[in-house]
């Protein structure tokens, strides 16, 4: 926490959890999809499900999906703008299990047919925590430069990635590896202190056994 957390965020009201955090969840989904969203199914849990209309949580998430920042005044009109731009939005109330009361699951599809599914919680003050990505349990907050790397669970994959980052002078702040079962597909989430430039991403992609490499800048 620093002074700008206590005197901030600069945001669209009425609630840092229900609008600012919700918008950031949408933004993360858009960035991870890597292309504009054409269809979104949004599953709202707990307090999100109970109060989303009055708080404009649906508007904030959809605004984020369209790339709006948490302080963008277009959020209030996000549903109408989505309608005009042909973004299909379906809101569902759901029980997502034993998770934070302000949690949403978002399934999005891009124009190329690419899909993404994530579950994230809005944990207060506009801060969020992504807890599931494409079926893998993860834990990152979007405040760092974050590398999301689905890969095959083979010896050396993790080491090759961390070595390359070390060679580039990039320090790892947090890292988590999850997998379905031994030898199957796995997921590396690496949060770094230093910015990761696109050249490094391109180089990372040459490492064997990585399915893809997505860089998520702080949102």
């Amino acid at each position, binding site marked *: *926490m*620093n*002074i*700008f957390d*206590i*005197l*901030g*965020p*600069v*945001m*669209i*009201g*009425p*609630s*840092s959890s*229900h*609008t*600012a955090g919700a918008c950031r969840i949408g933004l993360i989904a858009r960035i991870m999809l890597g292309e504009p969203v054409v269809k979104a199914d949004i599953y709202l849990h707990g*307090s999100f499900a*109970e*109060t989303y*209309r*009055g*708080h*404009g949580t649906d*508007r904030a998430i959809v605004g984020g999906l369209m790339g709006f920042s948490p*302080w963008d*005044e277009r*959020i*209030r009109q996000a549903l109408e703008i989505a309608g005009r731009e042909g973004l299909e939005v*379906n*809101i569902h109330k759901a029980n997502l299990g034993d998770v934070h009361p302000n949690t949403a699951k978002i399934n999005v599809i891009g124009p190329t047919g690419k899909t993404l599914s994530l579950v994230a919680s809005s944990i*207060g*003050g*506009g801060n969020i925590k992504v807890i599931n990505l494409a079926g893998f349990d993860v834990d990152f907050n979007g405040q760092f430069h974050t590398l999301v790397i689905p890969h095959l669970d083979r010896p050396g994959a993790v080491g090759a990635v961390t070595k390359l980052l070390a060679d580039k002078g990039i320090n790892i702040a947090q890292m988590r590896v999850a997998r379905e079962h031994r030898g199957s597909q796995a997921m590396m989430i690496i949060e770094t202190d230093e910015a990761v430039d696109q050249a490094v991403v391109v180089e990372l992609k040459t490492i064997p056994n990585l399915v893809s490499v997505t860089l998520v800048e702080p949102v």
Partner: protein
Amino acid sequence: MLSYRSVKELVDKAEVEGVRLADVILADQAEFLGKPQAELWQEMERRLEVMEQSVERGLSEVHRSVSGLVGGDARLLQEAISKGKLLGGQVLDGALLRAVAVAEVNAGMGRIVAAPTAGSAGILPALLFTAAEKLNSRQEEMVSALFTASGIGMVIAKIAGVSGAAGGCQAECGSAAGMAAAAVVEMAGGTPEQAGHACAIALKNVLGLVCDPVAGLVEVPCVKRNAGGAANALVAIDLALAGVKSVIPVDEVIEAMYQIGQSLPATLKETAQGGLAVTATGRRLARELAGQYRERPS
């Protein structure tokens, strides 16, 4: 993080060095963030600008919330003030008006600065701009006051927390009033010690205040609690500037606020399961909103 663990440590440091709380806090945060002070200053100027815009917006347009429960009260206050119908005088009425204006902008999905939360966002700008009008404060003094407010807020957040879900409304509108009171006392030429007393007095006045929003929305009673918080801050500012001291030291008051927040049942901490939310009218409004929402296509 702030390296000071208590308001007393902040006050002592400022008093020993003969500087303002704002200077101590700015220096500390520049070091913590590893950034030049000028950069933090600029960012704080930006927040002051957004605050000013939120006040202006709230005064010049009627902001209705999505639910329709709130909106239009700032307009009523404005009209009454211009007709000379109110009793509070320029400073109190100005603070109430601005607090309601910003709280309505927030409820109406406009842009605000959470201070420390969105639900309590009206209190600090209300006091800051109203006091600046009275004192002819320069922009620089107002930015400085924001550093004071945030340093005090960080201590409160560290010891007690500032979310209604964890501590009730005392933690939101109470903290906002405590931050605003300390900041404006310093802006008005009070000592760091007086700023600490102002914070203590404001917090003491609302210890135990519950968070009981109707239908779970940041609207009823939140908009009016911003007005109440502004008035409370003004009480604390004037008492402190007159030299009145809080018998209970400010850090102990903050600790008491934390303990009270812990003792409050969950029904009174933002869950809309107690207090005003479950009054006959509160329940009716919640039912009506749910019905209204069902009729609209999603």
